[in-house]
């Protein structure tokens, strides 16, 4: 069995992973919420607001000093989309107690910080403090507007947004400016109570620490819970478009960003899931993929061109940074290479190196606490108890026919090009 997961409170699960090769430990608390335009801003706001002021740390200075005094421990939140879900992670990386001077316990200090943040936020009139909520809202609005700064990521996100036709999986993880503005201190406090009382929580602890202490601590944090419904799920993108949706966006940029979104219909746990990872390597991920070897190396059309697979939603994107006038050439080559995979035109070398690359990646997971935590969480979410060796064997068993079969599921859905300003 890959992991031992304990149910420590209704809807709260604790998964420890012991390893002694690191100087630092990691504890991550993940709240699993539905991806929703109204709650996305609240996922992003709740912990930044709380860390502005708790009962013991009444200001940012006190909070940050506490972490610095805990041997520069890191503590913070991270919000990501996973298909139709949004995962809110509150995590800490902290040095092992053996590096503490004079027998201090860094772990005790970290659990105390979690206690403050999860159980003792500062409130006024039964809500969060308005000035902190307003201040964090402004920061989040800046972050949402600032998405345009990184052209590559912006183009990718815009393509998915157009693909989604308004479905939740296409929204910005920050939420929209209007939805951010609409958050009130009362609503945010209510949402915080909902997270603590009613949302499924997955906790991982990786490293060398007293796991019983950690598990008992979180059992206490969540002990007021009643039963939590297990009704939040993600599903594959429903590809029912009859013709490709095409979108051109104009900005004053030097380079065009072509992003193609495809439906695959293949999600974690499907029969073709492992072959889909191999397909992605063969087709567009890494320096021996067909896209790199042809769009970049053979035709010199770009510096970056690659595919990425979103298996929580059953979609794939291909992105390329190109000169505006090379749009058609790049598109043709991207589609031609996909056609080749469909036809099974995959050399032994391509298949073999794709598998080796995936295997190498899996073997390296246990070399970082963050990677271990992410791997365990991913395995929990997909209910995959297979060991590293079993997963390697699955990859090795993939054939050219399997990869070609995956390619046959790949269908172009949305065509997006971020290009220069049209002549005014």
């Amino acid at each position: 069995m890959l992991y031992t997961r304990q149910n420590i409170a209704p809807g709260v699960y604790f998964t420890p992973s012991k390893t002694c090769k690191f100087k630092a430990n990691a504890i991550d608390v993940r709240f699993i919420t539905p991806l929703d335009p109204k709650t996305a801003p609240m996922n992003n706001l709740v912990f930044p607001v709380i860390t502005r002021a708790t009962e013991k740390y009444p200001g940012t200075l006190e909070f940050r000093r506490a972490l610095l005094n805990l041997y520069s421990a890191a503590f913070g939140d991270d919000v990501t989309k996973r298909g139709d879900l949004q995962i809110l992670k509150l995590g800490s990386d902290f040095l092992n107690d053996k590096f503490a001077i004079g027998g201090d316990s860094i772990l005790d200090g970290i659990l105390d910080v979690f206690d403050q943040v999860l159980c003792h936020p500062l409130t006024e009139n039964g809500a969060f403090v308005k000035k902190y909520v307003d201040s964090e809202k402004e920061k989040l609005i800046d972050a949402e507007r600032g998405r345009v700064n990184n052209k590559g990521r912006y183009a990718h996100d815009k393509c998915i947004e157009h693909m989604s036709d308004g479905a939740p999986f296409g929204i910005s993880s920050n939420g929209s400016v209007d939805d951010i503005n609409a958050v009130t201190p009362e609503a945010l406090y209510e949402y915080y109570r909902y997270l603590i009382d009613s949302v499924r929580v997955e906790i991982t602890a990786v490293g060398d620490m007293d796991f019983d202490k950690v598990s008992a601590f979180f059992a206490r944090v969540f002990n007021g819970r009643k039963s939590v419904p297990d009704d939040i799920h993600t599903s594959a993108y429903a590809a029912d478009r009859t013709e490709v949706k095409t979108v051109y966006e104009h900005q004053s940029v030097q380079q065009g960003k072509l992003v193609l979104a495809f439906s695959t219909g293949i999600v974690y746990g499907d029969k073709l899931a492992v072959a889909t990872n191999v397909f992605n390597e063969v087709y567009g991920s890494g320096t021996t993929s067909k896209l790199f070897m042809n769009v970049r190396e053979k035709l010199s059309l770009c510096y970056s061109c690659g595919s990425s697979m979103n298996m929580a939603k059953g979609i794939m994107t291909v992105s390329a940074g190109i000169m505006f006038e090379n749009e058609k050439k790049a598109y043709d080559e991207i589609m031609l290479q996909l056609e080749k995979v469909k036809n099974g035109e995959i050399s032994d070398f391509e298949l073999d190196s794709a598998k080796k690359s995936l295997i190498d990646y899996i073997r390296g997971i246990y070399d970082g606490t963050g990677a271990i935590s992410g791997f365990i969480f991913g395995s929990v979410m997909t209910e995959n108890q297979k060991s590293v060796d079993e997963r390697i064997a699955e990859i090795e068993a993939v054939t050219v026919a399997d990869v070609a079969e995956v390619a046959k599921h790949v269908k172009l859905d949305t065509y997006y090009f971020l290009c220069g300003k049209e002549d005014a």
Partner: protein
Amino acid sequence: MMDGMQIFENKSIGEKYYYKKHKSGLDVYLIPKDFSVKYALFSTKYGAVDNCFRLEGEKDFTKVPDGIAHYLEHKMFDNEDGTDSFEKFAAYGADANAFTTSHMTAYLFSCTSSFKENLAILLDYVTKPYFTPQTVQKEQGIIGQEIKMYEDHPGRALYHNMLECLYSDSQAKINVAGTVESISHITADLLYSCYNTFYNLSNMRLVISGDVTMDDIFSVCDEVLPVQEPKKIVRSYNAEKPQVNKTRHVAQFEIAKPMFIIGVKNTDIPTDKQEFMHMSAAASILYSLMFGSTSPFAIDLYEKGLVNGFSASFDLGEMASYGALSGECADPEQIYTMFTEYVERVKREGFTREDFEMVKRSEYADYIWKFDSTRLPNTFTFCMNDGIDFINYSDSIKSVEYEEMLPLVNKLFRDEYYCMSVVEPVKGEKNE
């Protein structure tokens, strides 16, 4: 234990490395780690700043176009038999890459198996250049698009424009990738000239981490590396005045909110290695005290909501050194004024000993932390190029005294050392 091998150890944190010079002239380092991942970084002390050089004994200096070190890095992956080195690594599942900075060019791989085979590939392709006019031409389009990608990147422009402000003549301001124009002058002959000067094994280093032995490494070195006569490289670096070149640079991009970097120039770079390490540690503690997460300056900016993503750092290199404070804000000039007023206040009021001790301890913790990385050779190589032995760097941190802080503020912070680079939204237009 291998003959002539030296061990350098930091017992208090349980880390060490092995060193031995290979007969080819190459310095070889191994940081043993209990990781599945084995990581190798093969680097030459040659970067964007090295645009004017000669070998000892040669009369004339060779002057080369901006961006050539980076161009050379791209072209090293082509082999005479028409293969690409990425393909060779892929046959063993290794993840290979390369990068160029102002001061070095590095080639690397990470793998969990077939370590010796991968190391042989790395040492082989980096020591066997093959350039033709056709292969050099092919890269113009690819690197041209890499440059265009950077030109759309406001953060890169911001940083590069800060270097323009800081330096009048120093090569430290050269853009690593060059420009579309400068790279158009690169030829196969020029690439060979750079290669033959800087890719001599006596100017290179091999640093490896993971669960391997020096015997493994040396057996591959013996097999692959040619024995080379050391070469003495004469690099011509332009002199640089202590004052900044210009105080402001403002550029426009299609972004949402202005971004800024305040640059603080430092031309007082110690030549003695111990002093250099000490200054590096002292200035980094000072920057954390003055601008770190718990500093009055950072807290003030955060609580007033004036700056998003504020960060500060100090960089000390052999030829260039500066501090940088950056973030996103509505009014960069306001932040600049707050910065200059704050520095003067610090000069008057100083720091508390308690704050100093807290920050110093956190610097030490950050140092220990770095040993959890599977990419330790990067940190070690960056440090070694500046003459810092990373394994002992904790001693430098420990040696920094409270009493040094205020004199250091007075030395590093003066009006004539300051500049600011700003990137602001394109005027008169709105994003849709």
